[in-house]
């Protein structure tokens, strides 16, 4: 079963613009993670936010978490062509992590 659902499913922006992706989930969580997948490759961990955190930054990435709305957003600022990838949110613990279907981001140079 899918815990997280990303929105939009696809996003196309110009280089330099900001990209925002959203994730909604159904049950209460202890943490939420975001991963990136370049075309035809494995996933790479980007950032983890705990349920008691509201916002977290890592370089050009900003993640917010609203546990009352069961949602999270990933903002990529000043996007680059190299940010073109699929982005997944994931929830769970050490042994069972559930991934969403992903948002496909295209950054046009």
């Amino acid at each position, binding site marked *: 079963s899918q815990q997280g659902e990303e929105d939009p499913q696809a996003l196309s922006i110009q280089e330099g613009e900001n990209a925002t992706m959203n994730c909604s989930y159904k049950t209460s969580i202890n943490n939420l993670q975001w991963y990136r997948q370049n075309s*035809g490759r494995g996933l790479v961990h980007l950032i983890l936010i705990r349920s008691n955190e509201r916002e977290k930054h890592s370089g050009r990435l900003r993640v917010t978490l609203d546990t009352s709305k069961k949602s999270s957003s990933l903002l990529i600022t000043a996007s680059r062509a190299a940010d073109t990838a699929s982005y*997944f949110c994931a929830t769970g613990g050490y*042994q069972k*992590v559930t991934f969403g279907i992903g948002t496909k981001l295209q950054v046009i140079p």
Partner: protein
Amino acid sequence: DVKVTQSSRYLVKRTGEKVFLECVQDMDHENMFWYRQDPGLGLRLIYFSYDVKMKEKGDIPEGYSVSREKKERFSLILESASTNQTSMYLCASSLNTGTSGLKQFFGPGTRLTVL
């Protein structure tokens, strides 16, 4: 850096063949996972292992089995491949404790086509 390797990037097999997909990690991680990824369905967990010789079914274990004889190696076995098992297969590993343990490290994937 953690490295997770998978035995093949691309594999073509015939219906009914026995298929072995191998995954090796080099960071002494306790947990290892096999997922399949299909368009519109995202990643779905097939099996995971939290220790040598230990395994747990994921969401879609039917038609698959796994083997973990050594800590660094986790194999996925398709006993009799079928066309509906054509997919991208991703292996991952993680620790079992601490915040770091929540983060999974993925291999590059094996794109399996069953004809």
